[in-house]
Structure formats: structure tokens, C-alpha cells
């Protein structure tokens, strides 16, 4: 079978489309949140002074936000590892499905 045909078949598998949709949703949402939570800090510190209020004693909200960005990084790190291994499982299934489909087709030819 031609390469092109093979890839078309795999892309058409419901499992593959399902995985793509899930992955897209996860990656887009996460990236958007990361962008907003990060860029909001320089925007707020450049154009306003709201973050200069005290959070605990000498620590202001700006510092709190900065430290939260570290915690956010760790959170998204762990989240990605978890999600990615669930995608790994989906991928295994897709590969099995693809192998079945492709060998059947080849037998028919």
C-alpha cells in the first residue's frame, strides 16, 4: 500500500480523531491559561499599582503572584505528565486498530 493511503486510513480512524480532539482541547486550554496568568503580571505591574498591596506582612501581591507562577509551573508539569500517559494509552489502541485495518486491507488486495 502507498504511504499516503496508509496515513489517510489512520487519520480516518475514529480513535485517532477522538484522540486528536481531546489533545487539542487539553493543549489549547492549558496554553491559553499559561499565557494569560503569566502576561497578566507584567501588564498589571506596568500599568497599575494594585499588586503593591500587602499579602502577608512585607510580601506584596506581586511577589505572591510571582511565586504562584512557580507553583503553576509545577502544577502544569504534573498535569501534562498525567494527561500524556492517558494519550499514550489511546495511541496504543490506535496503533492496534490501525494494524488490524491495514493488514485486512492488504490481505484483500
Amino acid at each position, binding site marked *: 500500500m502507498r*504511504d*499516503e493511503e496508509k*496515513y*489517510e486510513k*489512520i*487519520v480516518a480512524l475514529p480513535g*485517532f480523531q477522538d*484522540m*486528536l480532539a481531546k*489533545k487539542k482541547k487539553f*493543549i489549547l486550554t*492549558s*496554553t491559553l491559561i*499559561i*499565557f494569560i496568568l*503569566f*502576561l497578566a*503580571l*507584567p*501588564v498589571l*505591574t*506596568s*500599568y497599575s*499599582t494594585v*499588586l*503593591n498591596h500587602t499579602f*502577608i*506582612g*512585607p*510580601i*506584596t501581591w*506581586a*511577589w505572591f503572584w*510571582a511565586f504562584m*507562577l*512557580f507553583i503553576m*509551573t*509545577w502544577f*502544569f*508539569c504534573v498535569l*501534562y*505528565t498525567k494527561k*500524556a500517559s492517558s494519550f*499514550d494509552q489511546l*495511541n496504543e489502541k*490506535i*496503533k492496534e486498530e*490501525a494494524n488490524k485495518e491495514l493488514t485486512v486491507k492488504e490481505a484483500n488486495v
Partner: protein
Amino acid sequence: MNDTVITLFLLIVVATLVITYFAAKITKNTNQFYTAGGELKGWQNGVAISGDFMSASSFLGIVGGIALTGFDGLYLLLGALLSYLIVMYLVAEPLRNLGKYTLADMITARFKANKVRGFAALNTVTISVFYMVAQLVGAGVLIKMLIGIPYVPSLIIVGVLMTVYVLFGGMTATSWVQITKAFLLLGGTFILFILVLSKFHFNIIDIFEKVKSATPFGEKYLEPGIKNKNGLDAISLNFGLLLGTAGLPHVLIRFFTVKDAKTARKSVTVATWVISIFYVMAIFLGFGAAALIGTDKIIAENPAGNMAAPALARILGGDFLFAFIAAVAFATILAVVAGIVLSGASAFAHDFYNGILKRGKATEKQQLKAARIASIVVPVIAIIISLFVQNLNVAFLGSLALTLAASANLPVILLTIYWRRFNTAGAITSMIVGLFSTIILVLLSPNVWDPSGHAIFVGKPLFPLASPGIVSIPLGFIGGLIGTMLSKEKDKNYQKILVQSNLGQDV
């Protein structure tokens, strides 16, 4: 005292040469040379990525930046920290799945045109040379400050060492030099971190209280705005930092040193943890320097604050700790430049020579020879440039390289992986527009033009921002969009890219 510094420097030189000796024994083919055989473990590559990325100028610069400018110093590191999430979420796994040795391999996996390979390699070489020059200028200045060797000999020492690692030991030597350096840097930072905390009874609130009154800025020290007067410039710089890492060739080629996407994922996760822990400690070293040394003394040693970390080491642990931190900074310089030499050399040898000149048909022997010649030529070019630009601001050179990476590389990488309609014309316009818009905007910026003569030319800058990221990065994407729309060509290869970037090449 000088004897201790010199002994420790020599120890580092000997250790790295021993690594290179063993690496040279197994570096017999191109696969070994470019990717260490693709056999690194996830944690090893993760530590190597962090060793590749945490440069001496960032270590010394961040500690000095926090010490001298308080909150604004954070902007030297936050973008870089979060940039690893961008690498993790958008680039690492598809890159590993599609590529082989270089960034151009990944893009030409979809668009099999020599022009695409050529421009991708040109961007890699340009970014690598800028980045290397930034590191070398910084290295020359630092070594002069730390042990008193003048600029030119310092440069030559660093240049010879980095060439030797790459020339003989390829990616294997580079990786292990980076891993060793990462542990040294983390260890050194950790010792200083604990010593600083002990001065404040391990009470974080106490540290904040102390720095609030320790600097000439008073309470303002903990508030934003000491350094960044122009808000848009701060945002633009952060935008560039956030997106820059995901386009840096010497970081991206590290993902080819592991066997599959899963291991690439592990690598980027480990790198993110190591880098974040390092940054947390560096913030407190900055506070420690501000409170224990004082702003005036830090500025007296170096106006940019680059001596804050070594000076802090001297106050906390005497001459030996000073020597140790100086040696760590030296190891850091060597590890980072070696990584960049390798990325530049692989673009030259694998993309220009084998890919374009020989149409992919060079023999193993010819390729390895080309790679070795390139790993001499690339450092020589960078050293010659560095000799002429020693008075340029190092931080500016570094951020220029990152903005270039974000504008000229990242758009084409993301569009290649994720955009179905993208085509050859789009890929080429994206790379050209990203590269030249960044360079032109910088040439028109306040870094180059200053009415009172503080820059290269005297005059009013035509472009108001020092870092062009917020304009040039979108331009890179728009270039890709318009180039694609204007061409009638339909890319038939996307199904394959879609399958391989998600499932790997063994389907």
C-alpha cells in the same frame, strides 16, 4: 586566594577533558556525533537541558538583577521558567517524533524542499552565532573579573575548550559536560541558599522585612518599576522570553538525544523542575546579596551586578567558597557554549553540506568530516565577532538571540506541526519575515540609536522598544499565513505529519 581559583578552574578543565576522552572513544559515526546515539536516559537529558540553558550570564545576572532592582529582577527569570511549559506542551514530543538531527530535519519532514532546509539552517546558524557571541562576550568579561585573565586570552581559552569537546566528543561529551555543570551549579547555589537562609533564621518573612530597609530604594525595592520604566518594553521582553526557548536550536536538538517521545517528555519535565528550583534559590541569593553586601558595594564591583553572587559567596564562606562559585560560573560558560557550537555545526554539516550540497548522499565518512570541520569553523567565526563587540551589552545580545528564536523559528515550527493548510511558500516567508523583521527592528531600536550617545549611533531611534518581540513574533506568524495564502500549492503531506507527530515514526 588566586591559587585556589586557578586550581579549581584547572580541575574543571581536567574533568571535562576526561569526559571528552571517553566520549571520543564512542563517537565514531554521525548518529553518535549529533545525538549521542539517541541513547540518553530521560533524567540525563533533562539535567543536560538545564545545564545547556542555565548560562553564567543568567546565574550571575539574575542574582545581580534581584539584588539591584528587586522585583524587576524577577522578569529576568519568570519568562524563561514558563517557556519550558511552552516547550513541553507544544513542541517537545512532536519535534522528537518528526526530527532526526536538526531543526531543519523536522520542518523538511513535511516540506521536502532544499529552500526550506536552507532557510531553516540559516536561521539556526544566525541564532547560534548571536547566542554564542553573547555567551563569549559575557565569558570574557567574567573570567577577567573572576581571576584577572584579560579579555582576549580568556576568549581563546574558552574557544579552544569548547571546540575540543565538540570536535572529539560530539554530543556525548557535550551532554556529560552539561550534566556535570548542572550538578555543580545546583550544588553551589544550594550551599549559598542555605547559608543565606541561615542568616535570617530560615524565616522568609524576615528576609523580606530585611531587604525592605537594606537598599537605597527602601520600600520601593519590593515594588515593580525600579528598572522597567517603559511598560510595553517589559511586556515585549517577557513575550520574547516566554516564546524564545521553544525556538532555540541548541535546546531543541537536545530532544534528539533520547529514544522516543515519552523520553523527550520526561526530559523536559526534569529540566523544568531543575530550572525552577534553581531560580527559586537564585531569588534568595539576590535578596541575600542586597541585605548582606549592600547596593553600593555590589555596584562598585560591577555596575550590572554580575559580581553579586561571587561576592556573596565570599562573605558567607570565605575565599574558598568564592573560588568555588567562580569555578562553577566557569564550568557553566563552557557547558553552554559547547551546546551552541554543536547546534551551529550540525546545521552547517548536516543541512548545508549533506542536505543541500550533496543532496543527502554524502557518505558517513564525509559527513563526519564535515561535522568536525564545522565544529572548528563555527567557534572561530563566533570568536572573531566577539573580539569586535566586547563593549556591547551582554544582556541585550542574549535577549536578541531569544527574540530571533521566537520570531524566526517558533512560528514555522508550530505551523508545521499544527496547521493543515501550511505550505512550502508559507514556511519560507515565515522564516524570512521572522528573521529580518527582528534584525531590522533591533537596528532601529534604542539599543542602537541614542540621542545622547549611550548606544552605537547618535540619533533618535525609529522603533521605540528595546526588545522587538511583541511585534516581530506576530510578524513571523503573519508571514507564514500570507505566504501560504498567496501560493496555490496544496500540501499533501499533512496526514503523515499528523500521524507521525502523534504516534511516532514506527506506525
